[in-house]
């Protein structure tokens, strides 16, 4: 092991120790440690927990030794690290060590839910500490001055507050009830907005990727605030068992939407400056606005229709058309098909527009597509559809479980859409093989490339894993 890797392992171990305390102490005081660690006594459990935390932290440090300079990457890797850890350690290795069969059944997963939250929190804390431990040069590559940073922070606060305000106005009580009323969601929004700009301080990115990152961020906010910090501040024990988490589930779609909206607004705020004031020389992009927008919309709509048609039959099997038809006040299946195809076109065209030129291989296309499908499950199936049918957003675990077929539909649709769009784009001299990009464009492209190599995959995986795992495990 090189000196470099050894140093990274040391930093990772320190971060892991902090993460271990951060996740272990609340578990300890909530009497959940015996269940999570498999030890009879809580102190012994804490010791085991800390040892595991230090070892895994070292592994984390070695794995991410070259990525420490990018906070977004490290934090999202921390999230995914925690999830993987749950699947591999809590569901697989630990039962084997204890002489039981591996816990891949639904009951075992449900029983191990506190461990999932513990692992997620551990991953997040470890990642944040690891970023903070990085030597100064890596952190200071960015030449932003104090003024630059205050503009960035202001952007985060404004977009977060605006997102919270907008959602509160549009969704009313269903949204404000995820925290303690208006002030609560405003604080949540500001945290989300600040979190976003701190993770992604660099200039504008595509709206689509921003939305996907926002969803990941929203999930982190949910884990850290309503599920962990708020109860602890109130002096309660951790509500991490399956039943308690089920009660807290309604805050998850709200947090996700909040994260998405805050991220999108923050992106648009910085994008607006560019659109309005940037010098043409700095915008030497390849196509004119009309051409690229039209092309993106047409491609997206084509992919949308294709994706929509692909799942028509299964939708008919599931009986989904009757429900969509009610959106326009009809009960006819035929109307349902038309509405479904219209929705497919809208989703496809918006995907084309927001994710234009963001994928550099098929896997990336599928990844962004899945994220887009998931967002529309939360926004469409859980929020707009029930509201459109005259009700309120259905954010409970039971409603999410009932909408599970729709979740699978959205994920499959999204991946098909992403794959088709990628293929269409790959046909037309794509950016990732364009060697002669001008400097201003090249900088943006290299940022995109870095993201695809770094923080994007954990965002996609986190979104899909969290959506499927939590919905399946928490179903009543």
């Amino acid at each position, binding site marked *: 092991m090189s000196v470099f890797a050894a140093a990274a392992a040391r930093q990772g171990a320190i971060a892991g120790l902090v993460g271990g305390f951060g996740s272990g102490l609340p578990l300890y005081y909530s009497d959940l440690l015996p269940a999570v660690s498999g030890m009879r006594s809580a102190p012994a459990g804490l010791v085991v927990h800390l040892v595991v935390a230090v070892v895994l932290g070292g592994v984390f440090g070695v794995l991410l030794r070259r990525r420490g300079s990018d906070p977004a990457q490290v934090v999202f890797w921390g999230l995914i690290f925690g999830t993987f850890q749950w699947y591999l350690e809590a569901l697989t290795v630990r039962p084997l060590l204890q002489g039981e069969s591996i816990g891949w*059944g*639904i009951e075992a997963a449900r029983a191990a839910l506190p461990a999932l939250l513990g692992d997620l929190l551990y991953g997040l804390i470890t990642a944040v500490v690891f970023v903070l431990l990085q030597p100064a040069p890596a952190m200071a590559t960015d030449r932003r001055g104090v003024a630059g940073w205050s503009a960035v922070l202001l952007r985060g606060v404004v977009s977060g507050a605006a997102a919270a305000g907008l959602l509160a106005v549009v969704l009313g009580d269903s949204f404000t009830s995820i925290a303690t009323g208006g002030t609560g969601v405003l604080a949540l929004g500001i945290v989300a907005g600040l979190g976003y700009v701190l993770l992604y301080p660099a200039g504008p990115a595509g709206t689509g990727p921003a939305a996907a990152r926002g969803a990941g961020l929203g999930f982190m906010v949910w884990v850290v605030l309503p599920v962990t910090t708020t109860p602890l501040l109130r002096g309660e024990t951790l509500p991490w068992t399956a039943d308690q988490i089920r009660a807290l589930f309604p805050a998850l779609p709200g947090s996700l939407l909040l994260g998405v909206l805050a991220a999108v607004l923050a992106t648009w705020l910085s994008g607006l400056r560019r659109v309005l004031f940037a010098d043409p020389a700095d915008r030497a992009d390849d196509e004119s606005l009309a051409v690229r927008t039209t092309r993106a919309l047409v491609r997206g709509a084509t992919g949308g229709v294709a994706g929509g048609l692909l799942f028509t*039959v*299964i939708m008919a099997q*599931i009986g989904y058309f009757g429900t969509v038809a009610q959106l326009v006040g009809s009960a006819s299946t035929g109307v349902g098909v038309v509405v479904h195809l219209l929705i497919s076109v809208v989703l496809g065209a918006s995907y084309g527009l927001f994710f234009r030129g963001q994928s550099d291989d098929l896997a990336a296309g599928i990844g962004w597509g899945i994220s887009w499908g998931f967002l529309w499950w939360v926004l469409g199936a859980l929020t707009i559809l029930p509201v459109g049918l005259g009700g309120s957003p259905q954010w409970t675990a039971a409603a999410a479980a009932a909408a599970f*077929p729709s979740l699978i539909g959205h994920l499959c649709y999204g991946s098909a859409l992403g794959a088709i769009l990628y293929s269409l784009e790959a*046909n037309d001299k794509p950016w*990732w093989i364009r060697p002669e990009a001008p400097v201003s464009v090249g900088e943006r492209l290299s940022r995109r490339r870095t993201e695809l190599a770094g923080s994007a995959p954990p965002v996609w995986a986190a979104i899909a*894993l969290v959506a499927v795992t939590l919905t399946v495990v928490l179903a009543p």
Partner: protein
Amino acid sequence: MRRILIALGVALMAYAAVGAVLDGVNLIGVPLFLAGVLILNDGIILPLVIGLGALVGRVAPRAWGGWTRAAAVISVSVTIVALPLVLGFGRVADNPSVLPGSYGRGLLLILALVWLVALARGLARRGDPARRAGVLVGLGVGVAVALIGQLRGHMTAAAAGLTPGSAVTIAVTIIGGALIGSVLRYRPGRLLSLITTGVLAGLLWWTVEWLTVLPLFAGAEVSWSLGDAQASFGYLVAAMIQGGVTAGLIAAVGARLPVRTVDTLVPPEETRPRVLIVGGGFAGVGVARRLQQRHSTAAGAPEVVLVSDSNYQLFTPMLTGVAAGTLSQQHIGAPLRAGLRNTTIVHATVESVDMAERQITVQPEAGEAVTMGYDHLVLAVGSVPDYRGLPGLEQYAFTLKSLADATLLREHVLRQLELADGERDSLRRRRLLTVVVAGGGFAGAELVAELRDLVHSVRRFFPRLDPEELRFILLHSQDRILPELDERLAAHALERLRAKGIEVRLNVRLTGVDAEEASLDDGRTIGTGTVVWTAGNAPSPLVRELGFELERGAIACDATMQVRGRADVWALGDCAAVPDLAQPGAYLPPTAQHALREGTAVADNILAVLDGRAPTPFRFRTIALLVALGHQDGAVQIGRWLLSGRLAWALWRGVYLSKLPGLEKRVRVSIDWLLDVFFPRDVILTEPRRGRPPRDRMATMASVNVGDDAR
């Protein structure tokens, strides 16, 4: 074979008819139903499927082989036909014998089979080594997972209702492994991302395998239900681990394969075969565009170089529009650099070609001549006006081959009006107001009608002109104009032109032109200052220098468009004599629609030769002939279908607008046409004044200035 099939079909129909009569079926209802089926099939489904096939062929990426395309078309057409059954239209609640089956399941089963075949074929295809390695690794992991799954029976218990049986489960699992592997591609420094993506692919495959395909084969309904998901939760974990392991192994293999990083995705230029295209017209651009979309399996994407003496592709069918002032000149040219992004554009003229060394020397507008090597040379140099040695034409006659020609002609016609407006001498005035177009082909007929429209639309700005004095004459050497068109349609077009006041003189040839008159072969002369020559084009003079065998002045080619006796030189478009396979002894006409198709065919043939296959002979029958005859009038022939008047004119505009390269130009031309409805055409003259030079005032002003300074 065809006759046997027809006989078989007739026999079947007869059997059905006899059966219908003997069984005494409803003699009104059944024919009605059959008619309905006929209309539905021929009127809706067939056009839809054909349209879809065309759309898929046009937008589908080259990476999707023919199999995937076929699968897409089959899926959609089968779905369209079966959807009413799936949705239960016509199902009656109290009569379970109407539409009793589970059609959705049946359809899904068919779709699943179609796609499994297409995917298996796609996975078996030869591709780049990294992808192949991915598929093989995935396949291996898939086999291992299938084996483990069979050995560990207890996990299956929970998902018993979902599994169809060992054989199908194993097959699906193995295909899934290969699919997961096909998505993942190792790139240096992206190990973690690869593993994460692998886990994601595993999750996705779980939804496909355990929630869709296996229930389908097991005879259950696909419901994507939570119950199924919970029953197969263990397989979710397994599938994610499978994805992660596949990714890890692919990375391990990929690290040993030759590095193909982002920057080397395009092979280095030296090793790529170079296709050098001369000419930036329909034919040359057609070749380049096709080569941009396809690539050879053996040699990858060839390097494409296009040498052209203009930096745009001229949309010749709309040149008359520019001459008539309805279109702006830039709007009918598509910049080569914008349309052909993967092609190296060389703005130069050809100096010489060295076939032995496979080299070509070109001369840019300024600087030294440049010599370039090639592997395949494509000659699409087009044609130039051929004056047939008639005296005075080169000096006095206008042509319509380039934007400059069109602009010059427009300015000249308007200038004649300006001059005539002040001309007292009636003979000279009549000469100024007479336009002669020689050649009654498409270009000539369209041009004379358009010029008439131009003059009449701006006539009101010249109130002193007498409309009676305006003369438009079309000369044609045969007994009917538009010889390519059906006789009746051509006669109708002649009638329309004459009705517009255009003198059409048949069986007469131009013998010479001077500054004041045009002489004809019947001994008569026409006093005119405007003669436009559209009666003859000849292949570009370059083709004579190259030393090829010539056929009617054009390069003699095989039906594959390879120049006779040369496997690496291709010729197409106006400069080539390509044999017409439908009519032995004839050659394909030099039209834009042929040039475009020839371009595509030459590109495919070059790729075939690069792959070691034999090139395919080119066959194409003219789809349609369209001619515009001035203001909202035209004639169209599509096969045996003849059309004239406004509809034909609208068709002309629609077809050519859709053929115009690039969205931007389409929008601009549409706007030009729209504005032409509301505003008069422009009479601005931008060319410098010719004829008598103005008195030089600059000299006088200079002397005054000097005086001022001296004071």
